[in-house]
């Protein structure tokens, strides 16, 4: 049995809300009755509020998608870097081996795994939109703050492959406190590396 996706249910609810509001606007006389007042209350308050909250939730979910992040021109090279055929490229190795959800690749590594981290990521996303359409896009684009090891440790800490590496064990406190950066201390320092993209091979996934 095919169950409708949440987005399809939301479209249906939006259409029902619009139709009910149109009915009340075109036939205001129906609000003379008690049932009509209840219908107007449902059409003008309950359903629109439900639609707005549901719509906001749907938009927030969509903003986590890789294709959403890569829909801005400035991000194209970063999206392409996920397909570099070289395991030393950290994002490419994670993306191609499905160590992160492929559909939410950018968000998985670039959200803060801290309290209110998701909200902070969304606020920064609004700032990105402002810069994209009304500001000046820096070249090259940079993170607002140095990449926090916490985002790596969110998945790697406790993992056998991470903890069986003696260097990780020896430096664990320093890694946890960000004194030793995972990506700028010479260990995993090839990240997107978009400046060097002309000289690399790309992997094509089989369809």
């Amino acid at each position, binding site marked *: 049995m095919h169950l409708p996706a949440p987005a399809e249910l939301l479209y249906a609810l939006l259409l029902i809300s619009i139709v009910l*509001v149109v009915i009340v606007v075109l036939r205001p*006389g129906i609000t003379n009755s008690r049932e009509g007042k209840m219908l107007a209350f449902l059409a*003008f308050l309950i359903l*629109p*509020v439900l639609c*707005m909250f549901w719509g906001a939730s749907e*938009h927030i979910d969509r903003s986590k998608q890789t294709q959403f992040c890569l*829909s801005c021109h400035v991000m194209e090279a970063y999206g392409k870097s996920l397909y570099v055929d070289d395991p030393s490229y950290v994002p490419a190795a994670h993306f191609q081996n499905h160590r992160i959800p492929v559909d939410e690749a950018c968000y998985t590594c670039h959200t803060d795994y801290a309290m209110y981290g998701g909200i902070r990521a969304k606020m920064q*996303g609004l700032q990105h939109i402002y810069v994209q359409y009304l500001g000046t896009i820096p070249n090259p684009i940079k993170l607002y703050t140095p990449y926090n090891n916490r985002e790596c440790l969110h998945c790697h800490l406790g993992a056998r492959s991470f903890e069986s590496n003696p260097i990780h064990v020896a430096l664990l406190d320093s890694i946890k406190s960000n004194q030793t950066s995972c990506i700028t201390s010479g260990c995993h320092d090839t990240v997107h590396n978009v400046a060097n993209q002309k000289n690399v091979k790309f992997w094509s996934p089989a369809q």
Partner: protein
Amino acid sequence: MNIEPAAIGRGLRLPGILLILGLTIELISLLWAKPLAFILFAFVGGALFLAGIFLYLYSLVAARS
């Protein structure tokens, strides 16, 4: 104190139009997964929606008084 039915009916036209526009914009914005769609939803659709709700509630209060 009774609410005058005709007053409610008349007062629903403008909030109704604002809500129809707000909900239509929300519907259109959901057809894209792009940053501009979110802006359209949050700022244009949201403003129309809030204005519609506010005017609807105001029309209820105004009809009472």
